């Protein structure tokens, strides 16, 4: 083990942060790029299912809250791309990996948003699940990523509250609204629990990531934490947990749950979900339709540089 590696291991052992200038093992770097870029792409692709209801938001307030939320997601994406850039990869490369299907994003965004209540469910459950994960990542070993998590978590918990507010409004509203709220919960419950990833025993990257303190808590631990926090909220809403086996277990001190449909999970991860093709195509189209704008901006910058030199 060379002295760099010793120093690196030492920093990790002492719970200190790895910074961009520090030496790091190539696998650590790659592992981080994979995770950060997946996180960044999730923010960006996540704009679409919510954007789907932006023009139909049913009040001025709802419209502004939703637009601000999606804007925050773009901001998070931007922030996270720049974290990835500190690891030596450009935004352009990252986007190319996304377009080529080499980089993933959170599979939940491949589900369609079918009613306005989904804007509630996405904020409450999807952002809620994300936060549980992200809070634990505030202690991740890579400095820029940890710091980005601190900032992002603040905004995300704001989003989650706003999502929950929509759920309250719907669940306490007209019978049709309550029906929509329950339906949204039914559709997003299991997929949001699967967001935490495979069970610990089946998680490919987990053990090395835990050793390097990129990851600070196990998938199952975080998932259980989220379930335990969310079930009482469902009860508060007067809605029904869409899992008959989800009951408080005195012995474990946790809520039980049914086994998940991992076939579905992997199927969607592999690109065969309801909206995978549409999400990617939307992103590609926005890029290609606007290629002429980026070219124009580049050409203009070139011209003005030249004239600056000429003066």
């Amino acid at each position: 083990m060379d002295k760099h590696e010793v120093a690196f291991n030492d920093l990790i052992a002492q719970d200190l942060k790895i910074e961009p200038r520090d030496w790091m093992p190539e696998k650590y770097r790659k592992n981080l790029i994979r995770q950060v870029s997946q996180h960044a792409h999730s923010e960006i692709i996540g704009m679409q299912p919510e954007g789907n209801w932006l023009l139909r938001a049913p009040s001025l307030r709802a419209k502004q809250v939703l637009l601000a939320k999606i804007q925050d997601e773009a901001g998070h994406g931007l922030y996270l791309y720049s974290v990835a850039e500190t690891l030596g990869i450009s935004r352009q490369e990252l986007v190319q990996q996304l377009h080529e299907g080499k980089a993933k994003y959170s599979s939940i965004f491949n589900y369609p948003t079918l009613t306005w209540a989904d804007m509630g469910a996405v904020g409450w459950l999807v952002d809620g699940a994300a936060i549980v994960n992200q809070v634990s990542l505030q202690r991740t070993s890579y400095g820029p990523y940890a710091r980005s998590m601190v900032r992002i978590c603040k905004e995300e918990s704001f989003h989650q509250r706003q999502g929950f507010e929509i759920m309250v409004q719907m669940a306490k509203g007209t019978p049709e609204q309550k029906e929509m709220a329950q339906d949204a919960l039914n559709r997003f419950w299991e997929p949001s629990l699967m967001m935490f990833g495979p069970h610990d025993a089946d998680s490919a990257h987990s053990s090395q990531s835990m050793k390097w303190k990129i990851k600070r808590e196990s998938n199952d631990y975080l998932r259980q934490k989220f379930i335990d926090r969310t079930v009482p909220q469902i009860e508060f809403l007067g809605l029904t947990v869409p899992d008959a086996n989800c009951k408080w277990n005195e012995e474990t001190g946790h809520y039980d749950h049914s086994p998940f449909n991992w076939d579905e999970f992997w199927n969607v991860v592999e690109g065969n979900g309801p909206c995978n093709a549409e999400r990617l195509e939307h992103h590609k189209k926005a890029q290609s339709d606007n290629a002429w704008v980026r070219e124009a901006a580049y050409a203009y910058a070139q011209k003005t540089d030249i004239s600056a030199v000429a003066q």
Partner: protein
Amino acid sequence: MMQIKITNPFAKFLVRIADSEIILGQRLAEMCSNAPTLEEDIALSNLGLDCFGRGEELMKLVSALENNAFTPDDCVFRRNEREYFCIKLVEQPNNDFAWVVVRQFLHDVYVTEIFKQLATNEHQELAALSQKVLKEIEYSKMHSFDWLVRLGRGTEESKMRTQNALNVMWKYTEELFLFDEIDKTYLSDTDAIAANWNLGVNEMFAAADLERPADKKRHILDFRKGFHSEFLGLILADMQYLPRAYPDAKW
């Protein structure tokens, strides 16, 4: 069916501006996740949020002037095509990014002049709002101006697309200045609006190396009487769908 008829002349004046901002906001919201860069996506969302924000504030004034016979949301989500009074310019679609920035700039220069005059209005709340709005619009105007320069002086293609967007949308600038009695009551100097607008756009044409389209006598039916392009009805169909479909629901 709630019928929303605006009768107070001051409210009639304000709703024109409010409607224009909200419909422009809706068009900007369409750009969400469709901009040329992530930075621009964020910038356009900002502009959209500003539009909705001031639209809502103005609608509160309208609602108050009509003795709260309806809420701002009612006003936005329950009036039909002929009861809307936005300028046609803001209804025009996002055919490409040049349309987005051309529309924005032509709008920004116009409302700058409107809000400048309202910033000294005797209605305290409106004056304060206008002062705040002027700062937002200043940012928006710089943003669209910068893009127009880059597009006008960028590539052949960007110049062509931008000039085309200008040529098409120019048609909707004429009506902006056909001020009626209501406008003249609440604006201190309507002539100055046209004059300053012309200065502003001419400055842009020079800076961006774009050609000012010819001014012509046209017959395009005045927005002040609720005449619109066919785009508005389609915008409203999406925008109003939920409140129309679930009239008893609160959102």
